[in-house]
């Protein structure tokens, strides 16, 4: 699963989905995870990157990343790899 290609993301965490017209905000940690996801980094790479920047244990970062991806999916901001 990856982030939809047409999603617009601003530097300060404002997200616009032109497909639905819906807007979202993310906090700085969410923005960093989102940018890593858009670059196509794997989960383990993202967790390592988060640990490099933040004081966070791998377990917590993984739990939060999976939760974040799930919320992105519920907001229809993700697409299957073959879409």
């Amino acid at each position, binding site marked *: 699963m990856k982030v939809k290609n047409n999603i617009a993301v601003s530097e300060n965490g404002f*997200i616009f989905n032109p497909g639905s017209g819906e807007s979202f905000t993310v*906090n700085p*940690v969410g923005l960093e995870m989102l940018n890593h996801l858009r670059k196509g980094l794997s989960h383990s790479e993202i967790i390592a990157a988060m640990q490099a920047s933040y004081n*966070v244990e791998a377990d917590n970062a993984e739990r*939060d990343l999976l939760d974040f991806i799930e*919320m992105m999916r519920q907001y229809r901001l993700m697409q299957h790899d073959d879409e």
Partner: protein
Amino acid sequence: MSPKKTYERPIIKKLESNMPNKFGMRTIYEPVTHVEGHAVKDLIRDHGSPVFVISEKKIRKNYRAAKQAFETRYPKVQFAWSYKTNYLDAVCKIYHQEGSWAEVVSGFEYDKAIRNGVEGSKIIFNGPDKSEADLRKAVTNNSLIHIDHLDELYLLQDIAKNSKQRPKVAIRVNLDTGIFPMWDRFGFNYENGQAWDALNKIMFSGQMDLVGLHTHIGTFMLSAGAYAVAASKLAHLAQSVLAKYNHEIKYIDMGGGFASKNTLKGSFLPGSDISPSIDDFAEAITSALMNSDYRPKTPPLLIIESGRALIDDAAWLLGSVLANKRLSDGRRSTILDIGVNILFTAFWYDHKITPAQAFTSYTEDTALYGPLCMNIDVVRESINMPLLNKGDQVVVHHVGAYNMTQWMQFITLRPKVLLIDEYGKLHVIRNNETLSTLTDLEAVPPHLVHFEL
């Protein structure tokens, strides 16, 4: 190498374009890191999580403000501390030191008041459950017995006759003050004549001293005007007794039920905005009494049994985050070690809950659950909370009333209760329960001692 940044969990929030709230209210969160000068993290480290903390200074301040509100408006006022609101000995003794009598509603509470050193004549015995032994004790101690029903009245008559003692009695009166729901399960009804009938029985028996009239019109009353109606009706009853029997009622007990600043579930505005002040209640009651047609030689003593309004904001419950979860509909849920077992008032109030450490401006709609493996264990169904992590600490506000009496030993043990005195010194006033607190009361029959699995 630059230091690592502080982590908070990622959130994504959909921007809604609903109508703006015309009241302009927003959730303002400031961390509450200290309670009366003590760091929350230190209190939890030293005394465990969760833990109740009570402020003696705040209790005394509330009491004195309430006393002043009534005494500046009426010549004779007496407060009686409502034991059921919080009957921890240390708490009761603060009120007794301030001059409060005791108001009890069971034999257990009566014995607790006696044990606390309250003179029998300064104990008001209310409630529908007074055993014959309780009543005999109360009669011997000259306590003020507020009769709840005719069976109790007849029993007291028997006790008086057999013991040759004269019980000091009042009747509890329930009445229509124009509010809903009307409490009519306690005492004798005013409008249908039950109350007058009971008073006649007492006066005709000649075996009891009718000293007072009592009412308690409801709980968490948001209308001060209802008390004015109640006071007028009691004064009318008193005047009727004076006219018919030439007998002066010595006191009028208006009970309690004054709302605190908590927010009732379903209330649109917070309790801090809509609850009447203690001065509002005092003004309504004293004006009604003084404007009534009751004209004894000496004005009756006005007794107030307020509990909640005097203690609710003098206590906090400190706890910790156990876990975060995502519900099936996408809502965030946070599990605290505070549940309805110790925060019983979560069934009635949307308690204010504040994180005890710094956080960012990001918030998330969250369901706050307690630790019990029971579906009913909901602390807040929906609250806009900053992003809490496992191990973070929270402060629940306004928990002084009813939680330390209605708490349940259910699934887990009850925590410590701390008192911060007027000089900031910390005292443990109730220790945490241990397994033996419970098992000491149990017994296993011999044939059930051994088993093999």
